[in-house]
């Protein structure tokens, strides 16, 4: 209920850092699915990519509109004890939570109307329109009113509410896989007046469920033949297929090197130090300091597959070590950072709770727009550092003050 406040100067720094990072990640994705120069130059180890389950051979060589892979990114940031911002994670596939950002603002406007105005809190409500314009710019057919749809896994998905919210606020059709059909490498949706060609798909279905002919054959959420239509350039898919190779938690460690390599710039926002378990020295270091480390599985999200070294019992830690030794590629470790707290009004009193920050960035042909604000995720349990909503986290509005 109490908003989290970020000053204009702090925001400029964060914004510049995210912009730089996404530029590099986009170039990386284009590179990795085309020339793979970064592998040839030995900046990122070849076997790290080859062993990444999200490296998608099916999309090698596909040219996507404007060479844009990451259209929507939710970049997770934390602040340490000194107030410095660190990048915790890049979410480049189907980041969720933006509807909370928009709804939270509606709530704080109702609660603190004068304060919002006096503090010149920067607006966030333009997000759906910005996104809509980007979707519009990706249409492969030069028609005045292309068909844009949001593809949802359906009512049983935990983010279904957000899907309806976004479809409604952009005025686009919310479709399920069974509404779409591919014919002659073109995608159509089945309407009461027959088939209508679909130009742009904002999908909230994961890669592996998108097309049973290319990925999981048992998927009923996807559309058979979708990847063929995509390959032929008859439909744009947002975000691009195969982005998971860039937000893998082990690849994450190399993002600062990517920035250096593609942009020849020093990273504006640092990573959290990350130890790769495949490296023997780093692994030993982690094993000796397990109680100060958080161990994460590289291919899980939502706070699953995560062990906080300071909270876990010694049995759990020993078991974790065995798991790591059995499959080192699937784990990373990071030092536990005393992430910042903000005041929260809980049980009738003000209490400090740990938070992170997920701003939402939109990348279109005309550059990268980051809506000033984002989702501040709160670990509601006292002392907890885990903010994921699937682990009992909450959220609060984020006010970026005007200059």
């Amino acid at each position, binding site marked *: 209920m109490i908003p989290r406040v970020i000053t204009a100067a702090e925001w400029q720094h964060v914004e510049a850092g995210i912009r730089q990072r996404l530029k590099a990640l986009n170039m990386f994705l284009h590179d990795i699915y085309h020339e793979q120069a970064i592998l040839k130059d030995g900046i990122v180890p070849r076997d790290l990519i080859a062993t990444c389950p999200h490296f998608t051979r099916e999309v090698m060589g596909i040219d996507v509109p404007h060479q844009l892979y990451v259209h929507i990114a939710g970049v997770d940031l934390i602040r340490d004890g000194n107030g410095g911002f660190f990048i915790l994670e890049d979410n480049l596939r189907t980041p969720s939570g933006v509807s909370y950002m928009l709804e939270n603002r509606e709530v704080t406007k109702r609660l603190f109307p004068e304060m919002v105005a006096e503090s010149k809190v920067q607006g966030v409500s333009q997000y759906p329109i910005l996104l809509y314009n980007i979707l519009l710019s990706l249409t492969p057919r030069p028609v005045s009113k292309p068909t844009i749809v949001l593809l949802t896994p*359906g*009512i049983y998905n935990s983010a279904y509410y957000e899907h*309806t919210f976004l*479809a*409604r606020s952009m005025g686009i*059709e*919310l*479709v*399920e896989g*069974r*509404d779409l059909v591919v014919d002659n490498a073109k995608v159509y*949706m*089945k*309407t*009461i*007046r027959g088939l209508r060609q679909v130009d742009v798909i904002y999908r909230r279905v994961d890669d592996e469920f998108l097309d049973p002919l290319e990925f999981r054959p048992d998927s009923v959420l996807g559309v058979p033949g979708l990847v063929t239509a995509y390959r032929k350039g008859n439909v744009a898919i947002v975000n691009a297929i195969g982005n998971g190779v860039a937000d893998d938690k082990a690849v994450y460690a190399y993002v600062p090197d990517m920035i250096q390599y593609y942009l020849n710039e020093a990273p504006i926002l640092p990573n959290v130090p990350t130890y790769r378990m495949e490296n023997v020295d780093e692994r030993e270091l982690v094993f000796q300091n397990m109680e100060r480390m958080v161990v994460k599985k590289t291919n899980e999200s939502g706070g699953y597959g995560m062990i906080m070294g300071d909270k876990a019992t010694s049995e759990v830690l020993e078991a974790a070590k065995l798991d790591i030794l059995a499959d080192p590629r699937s784990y990373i470790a990071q030092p536990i950072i005393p992430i910042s707290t903000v005041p929260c009004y809980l049980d009738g009193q003000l209490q400090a709770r740990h938070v992170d920050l997920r701003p939402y960035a939109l990348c279109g042909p005309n550059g990268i727009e980051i809506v000033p604000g984002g989702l501040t995720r709160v670990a509601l349990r006292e002392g907890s550092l885990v903010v994921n909503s699937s682990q009992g986290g909450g959220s609060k509005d984020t006010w970026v003050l005007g200059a």
Partner: protein
Amino acid sequence: MLSRIADSLFWLSRYVERADGLLRMLRVNFITSLDKTSGTDFNWRPVLTIFTTLNNEEIDRIANDANAVLQFMIADPKNENSIRVIVTRARENARGMQDHLTKEAWESINEFYHLVQSMDVAQAIREDRQITVLSDLIHRCAHFIGVLTVTMPRNHGWHFMNMGKYIERTVQTADLLDLKFRDLSYDLNNPADVPYWRNLLLSVAGYELYLKTYRTGVQSHNVIDLLVLNMQFPRSVLYSTSRLYDELDTFKPEIPAAQFSPMEKALGRLKSRVEFSDISSISTMGLPAFLSDIRNDTLRFSNLLSQVFFAYV
């Protein structure tokens, strides 16, 4: 509009109409079952035969137990046609297309669903609150239909909802007539008087109109006239099929003739079958045959409708 959305709107509306009809019928029959003056126990067999899929033995087990019937027909999740199952289906349809309903319409059906899910019917029966429960549920239906009328845009979706409603209503009215005439062996010249028909007329909210319109003559002819042929009565077969015809007609400019014309012909046949009937023609061909023609025509039309508009796999 997506075929799936049209399909969901059609069924959402159809299920609520079905729930409404069932509830009204249950309430009236329950109230009647309390009249013990005739000396015989009220028998639920006709109701159970028409509105459930129970077999003879199962029907015998509860046919004289009003509370057991209510429990089964309102709350039993194993009964395909219980209010609980119908409302859950209606809400499932709504849930998959929330962005095509107004917020108020979604909230109304969602609240209805939660009421039905959380309702302890057994407890209500123990506390003798049967009529309250039925009335509350009827209000929920009325609330939903009212919210639709006030808030929903009059686009294709609206027409699909109305078609669902009127198809359901046509079938339901035919079923209710069947229910009451079955007891009289479909004899249209039977001497049954107003009290016998009161039950049926109340079930379709047509009792007052009946008293105002028909004073003399053979009551069972009057009843058929009201429920089948009376254009002023919103649950009559003629009214429902006429409205259905108007709703379908709104699609005429949009759908290729090759697809539209089979639907138009099927519905036209049904409508004129009713429109150009009168008591003597119905009595000549026999009520059961007449009703079964109506049901078959409606079913045929409904199948064509879903082939043209809803098929999406």
